[in-house]
């Protein structure tokens, strides 16, 4: 194979890339699929363009997986792709491939179908070039890998060798004969017989005679005493060998003419005879050199075959290793092609989907009862990026048990960016879901069980304090007030805990109704003012000039306000002041309908800068423990959740020892 340093024409390279991707597409899509038709058409027009400029294009494959186009080595770029292409052709033992002008798109497709045949099918076909012709592929020629050629070459060489031996023997005999060394009639007869055999065999095979054979025959006839009889015996021998009379006549006449010419100048003939012998000997030497050269080539090819064998083994081992990993994965793995046909699945997937190994090759929707997985498959659209996750519920074939599978899918693309299928990893999360449900049931049970007795105790104490059953003395009243304060504190803690659990389990829901925001703030401040006053802290409000109605969960918004104001009271020393203000905000990108900002500002101890970002995190108490102020560390995280569920936002600003300001924005209209 001739290699050149020049790089191939870009159009050729494109064609080879296109050929590879077309082969891939044909391997994935059914024959009449639009993608197939389009790819073939596209490839064909590329080829036509190339063949308009020259008669043929040749693509070769070297044993070390290099691709040569018109004898020029394809650059490293796209090596993977090239390996893929070479692999296809190695399967067919194709060493080189020539597209000739006149090739049709049908031939192209038929050819690619050959390339995609399974090894078993290929075996049945037998000789490939013949099968090509049967399928009407006339303008795509292949040369098969060298070791096949070598076999043929060897045989040819053997035949050639025998012929050479015979020629040599006859030449030396003729020499003897010319020198008058052969007299015996029997010997003479044998020589003539040998010569005629050689001549007829060669003539029959090639329909003409080599110079050497012609010379031997002529020299024999020149010297022969029974020349005319010999000519007629030559004629007979040719006919016996199956040549036609005109063919035989032609040869005999030609030889006769040659012989007469030679007889005319006997002297010259002898000379010529000598030089012919010399020439034959030189040619013989050349042939010997050629044989030894071919032998060397054979050795080289055998060595490269060995190398290929080793590579093949290591690839097989690698494949086995990957198969092993996939086989023993704890997760289920399913690979489907773009049509939803299963390409591969591992034992865990078989178990999870309740299907057998024989499902490989079958469409997924026909294989599993529920089509949830298929809806994922349907979502495949080329150029879609990343993975997507989905929980699906599958009933067993007899509907007796239900499994919940978490599927993570990723679209697989080839180097050209075309979708070749989808890989789905399946995790059985049935147990996890059960536990989640148990947890959420527990939360809702406990929430009821804890709140009901608390409400009862609280209402009992309230009625006693109000003096409904009878007027109380001062000490009795004081004890009951302490009990009530503490029951309220306990209630807040339990509510925070249960809200937090509800948020975590996704059961925290809003009840959105219209509410007057000024009224809500007033309501909360009125409720807390007395408690603040008991700590010598005043609460001022700066409300909106006009009543503004927002669509909110008013109980939850009051909860946020209560939380922020209570915190302010807790962290503000005696004599401090708390300002609750409301303001209208102009529309922004974030809040195109405008927003209401509510702030709670205190003159308390403030929050250190390193804590300010963390105050809305769960269980974060930002130095509150050191200051001896009680709380669960849940309040602000619940506030944040409530505001976020209203599509608003909440934040804190603070300076240590100067006070804090907590603010939140509620959109004028929830988008």
């Amino acid at each position, binding site marked *: 194979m001739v290699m050149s340093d020049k790089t191939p024409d870009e159009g050729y390279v494109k064609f080879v890339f296109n050929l590879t991707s077309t082969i891939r597409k044909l391997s994935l899509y059914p024959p009449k699929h639009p993608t197939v038709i389009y790819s073939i058409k596209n490839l064909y027009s590329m080829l036509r363009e190339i063949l308009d400029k020259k008669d043929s294009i040749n693509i070769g494959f070297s044993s070390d997986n290099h691709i040569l186009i018109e004898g020029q080595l394809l650059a490293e770029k796209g090596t993977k792709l090239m390996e893929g292409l070479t692999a296809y052709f190695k399967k067919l033992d194709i060493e080189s491939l020539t597209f000739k002008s006149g090739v049709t798109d049908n031939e192209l497709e038929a050819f690619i179908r050959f390339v995609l045949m399974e090894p078993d099918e290929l075996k049945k076909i037998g000789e490939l070039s013949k099968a090509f012709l049967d399928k009407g592929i006339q303008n795509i020629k292949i040369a098969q890998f060298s070791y096949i050629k070598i076999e043929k070459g060897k045989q040819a060489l053997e035949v050639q060798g025998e012929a050479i031996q015979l020629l040599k023997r006859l030449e030396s005999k003729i020499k003897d004969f010319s020198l008058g060394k052969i007299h015996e009639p029997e010997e003479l007869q044998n020589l003539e017989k040998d010569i005629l055999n050689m001549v007829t065999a060669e003539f029959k095979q090639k329909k003409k005679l080599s110079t050497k054979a012609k010379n031997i025959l002529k020299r024999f006839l020149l010297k022969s005493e029974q020349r005319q009889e010999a000519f007629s015996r030559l004629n007979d021998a040719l006919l016996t060998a199956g040549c036609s009379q005109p063919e035989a006549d032609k040869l005999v006449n030609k030889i006769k003419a040659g012989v007469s010419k030679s007889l005319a100048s006997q002297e010259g003939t002898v000379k010529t005879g000598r030089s012919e012998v010399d020439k034959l000997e030189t040619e013989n030497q050349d042939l010997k050199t050629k044989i030894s050269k071919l032998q060397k080539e054979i050795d080289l090819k055998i060595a490269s075959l060995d190398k290929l064998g080793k590579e093949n083994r290591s690839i097989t081992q690698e494949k086995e290793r990957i198969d092993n990993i996939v086989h023993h994965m704890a997760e289920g793995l399913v690979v489907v092609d773009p049509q939803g046909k299963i390409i591969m699945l591992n034992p865990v997937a078989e178990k999870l989907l309740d299907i057998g190994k024989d499902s490989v090759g079958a469409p997924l929707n026909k294989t599993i009862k529920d089509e949830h997985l298929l809806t994922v498959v349907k979502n495949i659209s080329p150029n879609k990026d990343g993975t997507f996750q989905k929980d699906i519920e599958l009933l067993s074939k007899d509907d007796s048990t239900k499994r919940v599978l978490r599927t993570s899918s990723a679209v697989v693309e080839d180097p050209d960016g075309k979708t070749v299928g989808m890989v789905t990893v399946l995790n059985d999360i049935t147990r996890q879901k059960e536990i989640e449900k148990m947890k959420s049931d527990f939360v*809702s049970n406990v*929430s*009821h069980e804890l*709140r*009901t*007795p*608390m*409400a*009862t105790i*609280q*209402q*009992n104490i*309230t*009625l006693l304090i109000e003096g*409904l*059953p009878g007027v109380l003395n001062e000490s009795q009243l004081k004890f009951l007030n302490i009990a009530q304060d503490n029951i309220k504190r306990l*209630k807040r803690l339990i509510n925070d805990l*249960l*809200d937090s659990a*509800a948020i975590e389990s996704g*059961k*925290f*829901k809003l*009840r959105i109704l219209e509410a007057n925001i000024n009224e809500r703030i007033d309501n909360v401040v009125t409720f807390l003012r007395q408690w603040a006053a008991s700590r010598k802290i005043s609460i001022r409000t700066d409300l909106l000039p006009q009543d503004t109605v927002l669509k909110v969960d008013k*109980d939850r918004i009051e909860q946020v306000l209560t939380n922020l104001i209570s915190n302010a009271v807790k962290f503000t020393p005696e004599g401090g002041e708390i300002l609750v203000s409301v303001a209208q905000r102009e529309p922004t990108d974030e809040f195109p309908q405008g927003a209401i900002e509510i702030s709670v500002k205190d003159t308390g101890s403030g929050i250190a800068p390193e804590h300010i970002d963390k105050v809305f995190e769960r269980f974060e108490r930002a130095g509150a423990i050191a200051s001896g102020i009680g709380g669960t560390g849940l309040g602000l995280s619940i506030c944040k959740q409530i505001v976020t569920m209203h599509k608003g936002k909440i934040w804190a600003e603070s300076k240590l020892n100067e006070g804090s300001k907590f603010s939140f924005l509620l959109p004028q209209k929830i988008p």
Partner: protein
Amino acid sequence: MDSDSVNKILAVDDEKDFLFILEYWLKSKGYKVKTALDGFQALELVKTYNPDIILLDVNMPGIDGLETLKRIRQINKDVPVIIITAYIAEERVAETSNYNISGLFYKDKDFEEGLKLLESVLRTHKKLRKD
């Protein structure tokens, strides 16, 4: 309040203790009160006692508040019903709003607030009936 215009309240809750204090307090405000510990008793009293207003707990064993409400509506479409509940995030509370309820009262709120709600519902309802 003269005896003719005294309103009859039916309070339904499986929590005996809470029901006791609710009844005591409502009576102290001058209402006539009957109580039911479950849905079946409640339905019976809706027929025989013909209350002006019903306070109904959501979370009850047997037939729960929601189911009881559905059946009350089969007997009497108009009687105002206030749902009482211990927890505002109670899922079933949201469902009750499909059955024409007049309000929600949380068990741990001040009874005074509950009284305001009760009185306003009764006023609105009486006005509607007169019209």
